[in-house]
């Protein structure tokens, strides 16, 4: 896809300035939204209550409101940069975490957890009852990871049949097969589920929500997420080389197979760490990187960061709406699509992000 991109502008320094400006602006909007997210919610929190040390207000703020805001901020960032990685590695503008089966694997894993792992199994160590708590989170995480490992293994089996330049195509094909398998598994699990109990939980998980996020569920995912995100940022130069033809990358001294494997696993870990906690969140992985690219028209490091920030911004805004638009909690995916799609369409029609 990089080949079809418009040529970079004449002066590189201009570009940097524009990138910096975009980054700063997006960062400022994200900070504002974070503050807004901290101040909006169903529990009547006021600065006076918090400063006055009201124990319940402080507890709500620290164990629910702050973790939820962090999850939206970091989760959106994670999905944004993971999406960028998938699109770059597969030379495919439509690539999203699901192209190698992360989301569908995680969905099947979550459904499995909801059906067969009772929350009681970890009751001592795992609070958090919404959507089944830790067993479901773990099961979703393992499901997503398992699907990707299967995809990569199948992709490497077909090594001989694809020419060097088409190796990623074999992974995409394997991903489609694994995706269908996971969907079939999900369908079977849904059929087994009691419509009153588990089916409702599965359906709600598939729509995504940050309503069940609390301090007690965050740390493990946070560590995995931050570790993978850092890895992706550090490897950003090499990831860009992967966007070239495989033979060209090889000439530049890149160990394509190993690098691709590492990068895909990092992006998968990142995605799985987020969605295993929140349920499926649609569109951010696809939309945020494109928005960033359309705005900066480059694929350098600032664009990766900008994509992440756009992910944060979108998820924060969607989550604020999800918790305040209705009398209860609404699924967050409704709003990520609702907010993101028109903006992307506007960017596509406008066509240029130059100053």
């Amino acid at each position: 896809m990089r080949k079809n991109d418009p040529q970079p502008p004449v002066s590189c320094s201009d570009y940097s300035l524009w990138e910096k400006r975009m980054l700063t602006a997006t960062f400022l909007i994200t900070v504002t939204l974070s503050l807004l997210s901290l101040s909006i919610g169903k529990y009547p929190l006021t600065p006076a209550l918090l400063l006055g040390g009201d124990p319940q207000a402080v507890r709500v703020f620290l164990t629910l409101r702050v973790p939820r805001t962090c999850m939206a901020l970091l989760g959106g960032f994670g999905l944004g940069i993971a999406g960028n990685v998938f699109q770059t590695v597969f030379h495919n503008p439509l690539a999203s975490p699901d192209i190698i089966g992360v989301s569908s694997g995680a969905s099947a894993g979550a459904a499995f957890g909801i059906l067969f792992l009772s929350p009681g199994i970890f009751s001592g160590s795992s609070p958090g009852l919404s959507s089944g708590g830790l067993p479901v989170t773990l099961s979703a995480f393992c499901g997503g990871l398992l699907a990707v490992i299967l995809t990569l293994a199948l992709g490497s089996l077909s090594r001989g049949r694809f020419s060097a330049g088409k190796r990623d195509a074999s992974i995409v094909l394997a991903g489609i097969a694994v995706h269908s398998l996971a969907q079939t598994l999900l369908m079977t699990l849904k059929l087994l589920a009691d419509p009153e109990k588990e089916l409702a939980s599965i359906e709600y998980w598939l729509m995504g929500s940050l309503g069940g996020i609390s301090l007690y569920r965050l740390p493990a995912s946070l560590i995995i997420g931050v570790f993978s995100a850092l890895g992706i940022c550090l490897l950003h130069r090499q990831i860009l080389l992967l966007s070239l033809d495989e033979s060209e990358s090889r000439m530049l001294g890149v160990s394509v197979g190993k690098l691709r494997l590492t990068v895909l696993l990092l992006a998968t870990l990142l995605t799985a760490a987020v969605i295993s906690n929140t349920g499926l969140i649609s569109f951010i992985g696809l939309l945020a990187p494109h928005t960033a690219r359309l705005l900066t028209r480059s694929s350098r490091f600032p664009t990766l960061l900008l994509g992440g920030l756009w992910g944060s911004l979108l998820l924060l805004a969607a989550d604020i709406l999800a918790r305040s638009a209705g009398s209860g909690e609404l699924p967050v995916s409704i709003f990520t699509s609702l907010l993101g799609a028109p903006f992307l369409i506007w960017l596509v029609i406008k066509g240029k992000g130059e100053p």
Partner: protein
Amino acid sequence: MKKWISILMVLTLTFSVAACGSSNAAPVESEGTSQTQEGIEAEAEASVNEQTIYPVTLTDQLGREVTIEKEPETLVSGYYISTSLLLALGCKDRLIGVEAKAGSRAIYRLAAPQLIDLPSVGTAKEFDLEGCAALKPDLVIVPVRLKDSISALEELGLTVLAVNPEDQKLLTEATLLLGEATNTLPAANSLIRFQEEQLALLADALKDTEAPSVYLASNSSLLSAAGPEMYQNSLIANAGGSNAAAELTGDYWAEISYEQLLAWDPEYMILAADASYTVDSVTGDPNLAGCRAVKEGHVFQLPDAIESWDSPVPGSTLGNLWLASILHPQEYPEAQWKDAAATFYETFYGFTPDLENLYAEE
């Protein structure tokens, strides 16, 4: 002439069946009433009115007019609430097919174990048209959500009634409908009288009490709440509570957040009978440590050892009584609902319930 003789025969038969029907089905009300000659005559007359004369045309809960040619000897029920209703009406021996997963219903094991081995006609998600037709029942009872299957069943020559027992009023309607369709109106009326009497007694006992706030959570998650338009709201109201989730809209379970639950800070938390989580997991949840119901040990689960009283089954009245004894133990003591429950199951289902063990063992 032949016609007159047959009418006369039907009437005679009607009288004799009615006499034994009413004496079996209404032991609740006979207590304390003096049986004068007039009273007996009035009852006999009422019993005549309670007989169904076939063919009968009934309007089902989809508003369809259905003609039942003769008293149905064999029944298929595709919904657990109508199956439970048919048991209460004394039709257990007429059932030849029931909904799927019958084995998971404790009430069937207690009242009519033979139901568990009957052929399954599927679920409300996936109704087994051919399986149902193969049983050749005289009457098929399906929930309204299966309305798309009804015309197919009728084309197969079956008589189908749709029921929609989703709240107390609709349950009463469904009770009368099935009573009339299966010629068990005396039992149906007796069942409705029992429910009305118990609720009247309850309302009387609770008339001077204050309503504590009650949060009722769904089977799937603690953070899935019953709003004011749901059937479960009447459970809370009848038991003398006020719904903590009164601000929710919509007639289905609404997802909420911990924050919202803490903002409502209910005095009582009641978990649905078939909840997939436990009271312990709620009281042990650190996110809820500051919540009033948790601090005061007011987290309870609706009993599930017999049936789930939080769905509109005939025994759901007992759920109101149970909850009242939790919320207002002084005004409505535990013994009172247990008496009512024992009478109910002995009268309508023919078994003595074990009210010491209210929760099914996992």
